[in-house]
């Protein structure tokens, strides 16, 4: 019999807010020392009351827009109770009854994955175990940092679809500035079951908790698929609905202790957080603050004169867009900037194994300006750019120190040209005898002598004048 996978995902994503969900402590930009970023509210002291972070609400609404959701303009917060040392209040404020976004979808190519809901909630803290002293420490820096949980419908039929979805999700959230989606800041619970192909009923479901790496997610799904099919086909075990965890060393899933999962969370509306009413004006304001989608951006770049293929590459990455827009805003021509980013920057990034473009637009603009004004050569420009990537050098100082400035040494170029002509009598003779290409060889020698610093147009004209004397 053929079996098909049925998978649903719950994805937790940390929001890019400046402060926590219910207090004014710093948000996602994580501090270095444990408990650097806490206040009486987020470490569970009595007497504190929650004050809702409007920016978190706005980012959740933006996520709803990105994932084609219906926005609940009346949304509420609820308390979820359980005891754990990383949860200082012994309850997590979340959205159980009236989540902020519902009924959306994510396009994964030939299919669409349904989104059941997106809700806001607080993150928990972190436990640090010290084996040496057999002691556990608690770090509350992350407590109450705002998260959204994106709950998909059970629409996935393969691990590949899951990975495509997560990649799309990540780029959508990054693009709209909703989340940085840094390493580990996107965590998934994977609900998985199998059923005979063509069946419309669901099989027994297992939930793999708290996964963050794409490759582990893929491996865990493949492992579960085999385990489920074996159980059904060969009765290797009796499947029960349970929560499991992935062991990356043993490369398999294990059931979690029942105790960790069989809790009654005693949800009830939080009387201290007034229902949030997102009126039409506020909703419109949020909609207006949305960045253009990748498609809109690409069209816009094409209108600026950039080739469709290049425009699409630029528009697909938020960082590329940001740098491009900023450099163009400084007065550089769009086409030139596109070529610098797509050829030079990406080349260097590939060589240095840098994943995302992180360069000060002012510096790139300055390099382009110097090259355009022929103050340095394009080759020198590349050299500075490389140094900017590697050591974040100052552009003008670097040119100065390394003698890249091509304006100053016209007399030196002339000297070098004469020297090359004197040393290459045969080549000069060839040229004079009608071999036009020989001039190119002379030009190359001058360039080598000058270590690429001279202005090529100047060199060529001086060379032509001198050789024909």
């Amino acid at each position, binding site marked *: 019999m053929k079996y098909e996978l049925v998978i649903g995902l719950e994805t937790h994503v940390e929001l890019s807010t400046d402060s926590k969900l219910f207090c004014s402590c710093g948000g996602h930009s994580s501090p270095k020392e444990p408990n650097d970023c806490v206040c009486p509210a987020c470490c569970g002291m*009595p*007497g504190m*009351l929650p004050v809702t972070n409007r920016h978190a609400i706005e980012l959740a609404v933006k996520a709803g827009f990105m994932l084609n959701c219906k926005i609940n303009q009346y949304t509420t917060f609820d308390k979820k*109770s359980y005891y754990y040392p990383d949860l200082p*209040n012994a*309850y997590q404020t979340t959205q159980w009854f009236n989540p902020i976004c519902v009924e959306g979808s994510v396009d994964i190519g030939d299919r669409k994955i349904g989104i059941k809901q997106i809700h806001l909630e607080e993150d928990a803290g972190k436990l640090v175990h010290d084996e040496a002293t057999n002691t556990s420490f608690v770090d509350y820096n992350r407590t109450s940092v705002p998260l959204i949980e994106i709950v998909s419908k059970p629409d996935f039929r393969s691990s590949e679809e899951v990975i495509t979805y997560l990649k799309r999700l990540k780029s959508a959230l990054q693009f709209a500035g909703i989340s940085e989606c840094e390493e580990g800041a996107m965590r998934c619970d994977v609900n998985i079951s199998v059923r005979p192909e063509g069946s419309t009923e669901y099989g027994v479901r297992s939930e793999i908790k708290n996964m963050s790496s794409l490759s582990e997610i893929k491996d865990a799904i493949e492992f579960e698929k085999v385990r489920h099919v074996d159980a059904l086909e060969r009765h290797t075990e009796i499947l029960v609905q349970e929560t499991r965890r992935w062991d990356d060393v043993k490369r398999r899933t294990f059931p979690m202790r029942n105790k960790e999962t069989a809790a009654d969370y005693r*949800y*009830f509306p939080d*009387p201290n957080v007034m229902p949030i009413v997102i009126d039409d004006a506020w909703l419109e304001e949020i909609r207006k603050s949305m960045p253009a989608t990748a498609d809109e951006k690409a069209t816009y770049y094409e209108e600026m004169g950039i080739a469709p293929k290049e425009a699409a590459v630029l528009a697909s990455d938020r960082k590329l867009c940001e740098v491009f827009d900023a450099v163009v805003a400084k007065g550089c021509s769009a086409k030139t900037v596109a070529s610098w980013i797509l050829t030079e920057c990406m080349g260097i990034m590939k060589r240095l194994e840098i994943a995302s473009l992180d360069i000060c637009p002012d510096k790139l603009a300055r390099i382009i300006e110097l090259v355009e004004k022929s103050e340095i050569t394009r080759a020198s420009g590349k050299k500075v750019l490389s140094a900017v990537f590697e050591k974040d050098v100052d552009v003008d100082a670097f040119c100065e120190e390394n003698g890249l400035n091509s304006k100053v040494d016209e007399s030196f170029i002339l000297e070098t040209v004469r020297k090359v002509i004197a040393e290459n009598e045969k080549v000069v003779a060839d040229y004079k005898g009608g071999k036009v290409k020989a001039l190119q060889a002379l030009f190359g020698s001058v360039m080598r002598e000058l270590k690429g610093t001279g202005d090529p147009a100047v060199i060529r004209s001086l060379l032509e004048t001198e050789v024909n004397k």
Partner: protein
Amino acid sequence: MKYYINEICSSGNIAVDDNLLVKDVPATAGSKMLESFIPLFSAEVVERLEKAGYGISGKTNVSEFGLGLVGETSYFADAEDKKLLGAAAELVKDGKVKAALNVDLNGAPRRASALSGVNFLKPTYGTVSRYGVIACACSGEQVGVTAKDAESVKEILTAIAGHDSKDGTSLPAEKYEYTLGEDVSSMKLCVITELYDKASDEVKAKLDAYIAKLTAKGAKVEKVSLDVVFAAQTAWQILMSAETCNNLSRFDGVKYGYRTPEYKNIDELYVKSRTEAFSFLTKATIIYGSDALSKDKYNNCYDKSMRIRRVVLTKVKELLASYDAIITPVCSKAEYEAYNTEDAFMKVFEESLFTAVPSITGLPAMVSGGVQLIADSFKESTLLSIAHTAEKEEA
């Protein structure tokens, strides 16, 4: 009687219940759990009084987390405190302070002021900040003022009321103006028969005498039936207990407060710390509330209680459309006797029949001359004016 758990300044003129925070002064809320807890900030109401030039005399003894009848379940109560009187109300009665701030979450300060013969006003929910209250029942608890006369209640309430951005349920008005000068002679008042009938003869006589003073001034008083008072009592018990269960769960022995000396693992740390530090009444309330919130019972207990809350509010508001205020007893008896610890939960539940309507609806209520007056939202001035008129009659 042990008035203070911690004294601050003998020349201070305002006493503050120990479930309200004063920066750097231990805040025990009457519990062994918080015996060593020192808050990092003051309650907004305390800050406002200090800014207005008042001095805080000390932290008055309260029943554990304010859940008892008056102060009897305090971990810091003396053996002789079985007299069952409120510490703050007694301090005010004896003239040791001008006024006291109390947290009214299930009627304790209202009962205490009735027993001691002083005034107490629980203002409209949302008009006084709850920032710095060691919370139990957030959806209904309010900071109120105990004082000897209506004039002083008005003065202190004016100083503490008004919007606080640190409290998400705080209403927007920056300031509230109160008056003692409303004309009582033209007022129409009503007595709720269901509550009147449940009171002792002594309490009935007191209430009749109070009414006589008002009718002598020309006010009209009628008896009416309001049968939702029983539903209000049960629903408030459920909401109050459930929220208390949730709010007190942060006291787990991990971060601050009492921690059991010996434990093998985290679960034992939780269970032993909480078992050893909480009193019987607190545990009973937590268990009752936890049950009401459980998956199987949520719809029929907690959710239904929230719906009952709306029904009660509607019914009482209908009544208050025809009457300026409602008069009821606030305690079943003129004096409380000591009771067995195991009876605490039922004792408090029985007595909450008289106090539940203002608690569950958030309407303002005032205790004056041993009786309770209830008015519509923001009508504190009506309550103050009635109390002021009755006071003058006494003199």
